[in-house]
């Protein structure tokens, strides 16, 4: 009688195995290689029909976003249309045929923007640099901004009097997680001390103010915000020269989303008619001396 339960269990499990085996072979179909034949607003591949759902992280920092803070967004408000990324998103939306009221912003923490599975946004715009490895997981739009890294230091500290890359090597650097700033430190600056990496912009700025790091590497526009608002005693020591292919920011899309083609068309139009350039001149102050 002790045999029966064992055999029964075995039979049940075998049935389950057979059943599961039968429902297989549904290849996950995410490859639609051809761009949408039409970029008409009505035939776009959207998460919510009739609406352009755009994701970005919270807080939304200047100069990428602007306007008075509005819940749930902290520091600024993507809906304001102020700030470079907000302006670009609305410009692209207009070219695609959306009214300003048809654009919806959702909070997408950076780490979840590239999580596998269906995305809740049509595209995510969050100072995300294009990297070939990243492009195997998501689709990137064309560049909407070419990035230069820069170095923020606190006035009066020893590093603040350095004038070349060689002179800053002995110091402790910091960068924000997920930014190519960290790569730039490791690959190009090659300091003698291991750099610190922070989850958030706020943590990095706190460490800089506390002198726990000597210099913070960030993209140039963010550096202007940091020195103007977050670290009053801070200054931009300089921007780093581009090494190799210039880095650029792109919007990210779910892999295989045909919307990329239409957005790239829109970006090309914005580039050729000078809109991108005027937006950059308006929101992103241009310059800092180049450190060599």
């Amino acid at each position, binding site marked *: 009688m002790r045999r029966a339960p064992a055999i029964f269990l075995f039979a049940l*499990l075998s049935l389950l195995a057979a059943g*599961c085996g039968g429902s297989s072979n549904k290849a*996950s179909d995410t490859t639609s290689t051809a761009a949408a034949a039409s970029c008409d607003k009505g035939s776009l591949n959207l998460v919510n029909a009739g609406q352009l759902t755009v994701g970005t992280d919270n807080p939304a920092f200047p100069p990428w976003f602007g306007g008075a803070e509005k819940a749930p967004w902290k520091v600024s408000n993507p809906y304001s249309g102020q700030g470079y990324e907000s302006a670009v998103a609305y410009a692209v939306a207009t070219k695609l045929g959306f009214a300003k009221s048809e654009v919806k912003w959702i909070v997408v923490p950076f780490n979840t923007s590239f*999580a596998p*599975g269906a995305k809740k946004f049509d595209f995510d715009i969050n100072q995300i640099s294009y990297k070939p490895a*990243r492009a195997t*997981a998501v689709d990137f739009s064309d560049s909407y901004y070419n990035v230069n890294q820069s170095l923020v230091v606190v006035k009066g500290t020893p590093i603040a009097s350095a004038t070349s890359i060689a002179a800053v090597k002995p110091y402790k650097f910091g960068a924000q997680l*997920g930014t190519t700033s960290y790569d730039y430190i490791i690959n190009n600056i090659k300091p003698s001390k291991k750099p*610190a990496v922070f989850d958030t912009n706020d943590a990095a700025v706190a460490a800089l103010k506390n002198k726990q790091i000597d210099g913070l590497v960030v993209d140039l526009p963010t550096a202007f915000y940091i020195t103007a608002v977050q670290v009053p005693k801070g200054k931009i020591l300089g921007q780093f020269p581009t090494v190799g292919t210039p880095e650029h920011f792109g919007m990210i899309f779910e892999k295989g989303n045909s919307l990329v083609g239409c957005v790239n068309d829109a970006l090309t139009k914005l580039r050729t008619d000078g809109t991108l350039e005027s937006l950059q001149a308006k929101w992103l102050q241009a310059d800092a001396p180049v450190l060599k």
Partner: protein
Amino acid sequence: MTSAGEGRRGVTVALLSTVVFFTVLAVAITHAPGWPEVKRTFFNWNQFRDSMPEISRAFLLNVKIFMIAEAFILVLALVLAVVRSLSGPVFFPMRALGIAYADFFRGVPTILVIALLGFGAPALQLSWVPLSTTFWGIVALILVYTAYVSEVYRAGIESVHPSQDAAARSLGLTHWQSLRKVVLPQAVRRVIPPLLNDFIGLQKDTALVGFLGSVEAFKQSQIDAAATFNYTPFVAAAVLFVALTIPLARFTDWLVLRDRRRRQATGT
């Protein structure tokens, strides 16, 4: 049926059942529609192989943090537990402080303590306050785990039958001598499994120090994951943590078994 025969049949059934169970599980998972994407994102062998060397190097920082922290925790928690066990009204303020400390540091989430100390203490800009984020991470972990481990010690102390203390006192030992020579040796031996359990918990919590900027194993895996938009580095870091825990857990089991054998042997 002989017991040997029954034993053999038992093993066969166990083996068969295990094979069938895991086969069914494997088939069910690999035939889920999203499996190819999950496999590429979480179980990508190339990513695992590429990120493992750097994560292993960063893991040394975790090891350094918990070795230093554990040494302090074991001692300080014992002091706290003894303070709380002192009887008599004259010791009331010390007991009250001990209770307040344990309640506070068990109540505040560890990550908050780390953030408050790691960023707050250096912000005071006092010249004698160390700036190192690893230092403050270790201090924060010591403060939090001392609270938990002191409760474990206290449970051990209270589990030693009062007749032990009474017998020691009747032999002429003072309260402190009785504590040191009779009660504590028994108490500590009894709570070795929970102590090692808390040690294992501490090993995991060293990952929180990464919030302050130190590049330990979890932070390094976050860096790799963000660079490639692939989560396999997290799996690599997890493998390292688990590999550390398993020997420790088996060592705990062996210690407990040995202690039990010794105690039972002396009983006869």
